[in-house]
């Protein structure tokens, strides 16, 4: 057995204290690693601060404008499910409220979802944003939630304002400042 021979040979070398790869552990890598962790944490704080300052009110809803036509056209399969809003409220509290606020009024990291840009957006646009996130601006991808759960969250968000009852046909996507820069 080749493998047993390798192991036995390694064992013998180690026991004799003269293994090829055997040497005392320098303390430096631990210091380097801890420094790198501190640096990573500092960089992330800086990145989060930059995201906050760069996502002005005008641009923060712009990703909705990037929703593909196919996604815009998709209908909420749970629209007539009486439990969807309640379940969505629970899921919102678990996954979204930390950033968007308990009542979706906006929080330290996430914008308000009560504004007309969101409330009048087609359900498909909200579902698409939820599934793809806005990674560049700090919103994570939520496709790890099964599709029905994402639709439940969309149902809850759409239930938050009476204006959400307005037909989506007249919805115009928010302008995208990034596209005007190009």
């Amino acid at each position: 057995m080749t493998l047993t021979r390798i192991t036995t040979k390694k064992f013998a070398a180690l026991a004799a204290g003269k293994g090829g790869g055997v040497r005392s552990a320098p303390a430096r890598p631990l210091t380097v690693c801890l420094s790198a962790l501190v640096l990573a944490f500092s960089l992330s704080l800086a990145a989060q601060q930059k995201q906050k300052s760069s996502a002005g009110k005008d641009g923060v809803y712009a990703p909705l404008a990037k929703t593909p036509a196919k996604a815009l056209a998709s209908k909420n399969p749970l629209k007539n499910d009486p439990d969807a809003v309640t379940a969505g409220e629970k899921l919102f509290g678990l996954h979204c409220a930390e950033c968007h606020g308990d009542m979706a009024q906006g929080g330290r990291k996430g914008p308000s979802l009560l504004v007309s840009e969101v409330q009048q957006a087609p359900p498909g646009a909200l579902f698409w944003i939820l599934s793809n996130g806005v990674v560049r601006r700090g919103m994570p991808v939520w496709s790890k939630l099964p599709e029905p759960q994402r639709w439940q969250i969309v149902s809850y968000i759409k239930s938050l304002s009476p204006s959400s009852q307005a037909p989506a046909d007249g919805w115009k996507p928010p302008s995208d400042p990034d596209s005007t820069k190009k």
Partner: protein
Amino acid sequence: MAFLGAIVTCGAAQESPYIVTYDHYLEEPGSLEVEYFSTFGTQRPGNDFHAFWTEFEYGATAWWTTEAYFDGQTTFNDSTIFTGFRWENRFRLLQLEHFINPVLYLEYEQISGADKIMKEVEGHDVEADHAIPNAVARKEHDHEVESKLLLSKTFRGWNIAENTIATKNLTGGNPWEFGYAIGASRPLALKASSKRCNLCWENFVVGLEMYGGLGDRHRFGLHDTSHYLAPVASWNLPSDWTLRLSPGFGLNDNSHRFLLRWGVSREFSGFGSSIGSMIGRMFGGSR
């Protein structure tokens, strides 16, 4: 953990059940997840062992997660020792979701030869490597860089993930070693119930993972290495705790016959911003 709980709020964990395989989902930005994992392994010939690690996983941004691991193990009838640390980073490569979603994984690890956590299997890792007494094995110090390409997709509730591993031990002239991990998992219910509950079906995720070595640059392949098949299950509690359990079974004579792995984790949402605010207040900032 009590200190962490005092300064940050809770957000819900929605963790995958995998112990070895990674999917493409990163930690939410600003969240800290503290995890503890155990592996009990049978050993032929020799003493069974209990290896464990503590993991601090932080969402630096929506596209970057960084983690620190601290490993240890107890070999029965031998000793309990600290076996090293790892610093891991995962980078999301594409902004939007695609048919397959790639994530780049880079890790530096400084571990001793007595490390038995088996966070991955690579090269020609075999059961006999773990039969060496701790007093001898701990004299070997490995400095490794490890890279992985994580590919993953979630469709109709099913997550399918595949990881390709390439590792280089910087100590001595060791060749690149390779390994793999694949997994599939699904929640027991796709729709959430309207009540806040611990025992709802949607809180349970079950699946299967398989992992093993692929040899090294000189002897590539599935032979002369070990392979495992392991059912996995996780229980995501609304209180932000996640429990995982995975019995693993060796698939060939080079593998441990049985591995029982379990873990517990808790996520602290808003950790980054809370610490940032605290630092701001300490230095008279206006946060």
